[in-house]
């Protein structure tokens, strides 16, 4: 890497970030960026400008029927009936209330997001076929909190006869494996498996390995055993 290479990247960087640099020059510029952290940071700032420009472009109402055409293009022809939603508190809500679609989202987050799942291993959660929920059931949520009250993510738990849990971590800079333990009433924690965080971010789903009515929360621990964060589900 030479100063000349960096100077060249500073010349080409704006067009590269805007996506209008010719192919041969683009390849050379990207090759340098891959080797030079300083130029990578510089390009990151330029790309933020391009992203900012696109964010400023005014929104516009699409033509009538656009939504239906998009859904048809996705193979979705049965539109959901409008639902009346209400916020519950205290007691477990009637099963007829809970939005099936939200539970399906939890399922999808495990089934569909294979790129985020850890591969098969004895120490990591495994991607398993997840049955679609047959009836509407409770989806609960809790914030993942550190000891100093920073929220670093959320946990969604879908509690039914085939219960699943989805963990989303989106804060901090921790990189490494974290273990997930399910805490339960009337017993010790149960290990749920491991997943990786990169720069504080990671997503993971797993079956709930304790009876749903015993699940009280989860804790995430680093490889060294330090508790990174924990969540408690409401009783």
């Amino acid at each position, binding site marked *: 890497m030479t100063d000349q290479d960096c100077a060249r990247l500073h010349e080409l960087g*704006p*067009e590269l970030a*805007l*996506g*209008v640099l010719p192919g041969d020059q683009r390849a050379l510029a*990207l090759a340098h*960026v891959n080797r030079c952290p300083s130029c990578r940071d510089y*390009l*990151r700032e*330029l790309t*933020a400008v*391009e*992203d*900012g*420009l*696109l*964010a*400023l472009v005014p*929104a*516009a*109402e*699409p*033509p009538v029927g*656009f*939504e239906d*055409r*998009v*859904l048809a293009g*996705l193979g*979705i022809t049965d539109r*959901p009936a409008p639902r009346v*939603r209400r916020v519950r*508190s205290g007691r*477990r809500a009637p099963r007829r*209330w*809970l*939005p*099936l*679609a*939200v539970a399906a*989202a939890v399922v999808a*987050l495990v089934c569909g997001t*294979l*790129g985020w799942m850890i591969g098969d291993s004895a120490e990591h959660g495994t991607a398993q076929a997840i049955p679609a929920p047959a009836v509407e059931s409770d989806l*609960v*949520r*809790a914030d993942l*909190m*550190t*000891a100093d*009250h920073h929220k*670093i993510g959320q946990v*969604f738990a879908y509690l039914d006869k085939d219960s699943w849990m989805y963990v989303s971590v989106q804060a901090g*800079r921790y990189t490494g494996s974290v273990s997930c333990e399910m805490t339960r009433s009337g017993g010790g924690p149960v290990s749920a498996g491991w997943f990786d965080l990169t*720069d504080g971010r990671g*997503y993971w789903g797993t079956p709930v390995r304790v009876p749903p009515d015993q699940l009280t929360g989860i804790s995430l621990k680093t490889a060294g055993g330090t508790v*990174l964060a924990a969540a*408690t*589900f*409401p009783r």
Partner: protein
Amino acid sequence: MRFRHRSPAPAPIQPAAAPVSVDVGRIGIPVDRLPDETLLAGLGTGDAEIAVAFVRRFQRKVFGVAVAVLGDPSLAEDVAQQTFERAWRHAQVFDSRRGSVQAWLTTIAHNLAIDVVRSRRPTPVDPGELGTLIRELADTPERQAIARESSAELRSAIAELPPEQARVIVMAGIYGMTGREIAEFENIPLGTAKTRIRSAMEKLRVRMAGRRADHD
């Protein structure tokens, strides 16, 4: 494929020995209040309710980018539809470390629209449309009732650019015109077009980097 880098992650959270969790209440979560990333992840399930919520949340922004580039609502609708189809197919590879779901979608829409333009375009852009878009990008915060601070900063920076630099930024950044196409359109040497792009981007970069530093 457009090259992207994203801003660094925020300050590290320090783990501690005795974390405290917070009960949030046993509430149901309306689909339309799910986080963007969760909605995107659920898009691939085929569930109609999630798909409707996803499309409704982002359709105006996606269509807005497409129609700004193409100027043709019919073409823009095709591009917008393709954008959602791509999002549906590639939802699992979305990486939130690289930016927001909206930024990802608008980039897809922008790339698709540029591809259409480059395959069709004898005339890069209507000068009238160019002027209109520049004014909209540089619109003052006073008219943006709930403008985000970062957007306001960039708008202000664009408004302060010399007109010729604002033009090239829009031509390149929004319409996807290369330096050579800008030079031909503006009837200026290629070197001048590239210099204007560099100068404008550097000013905008410094303004945005300075704003981020103020908030770190």
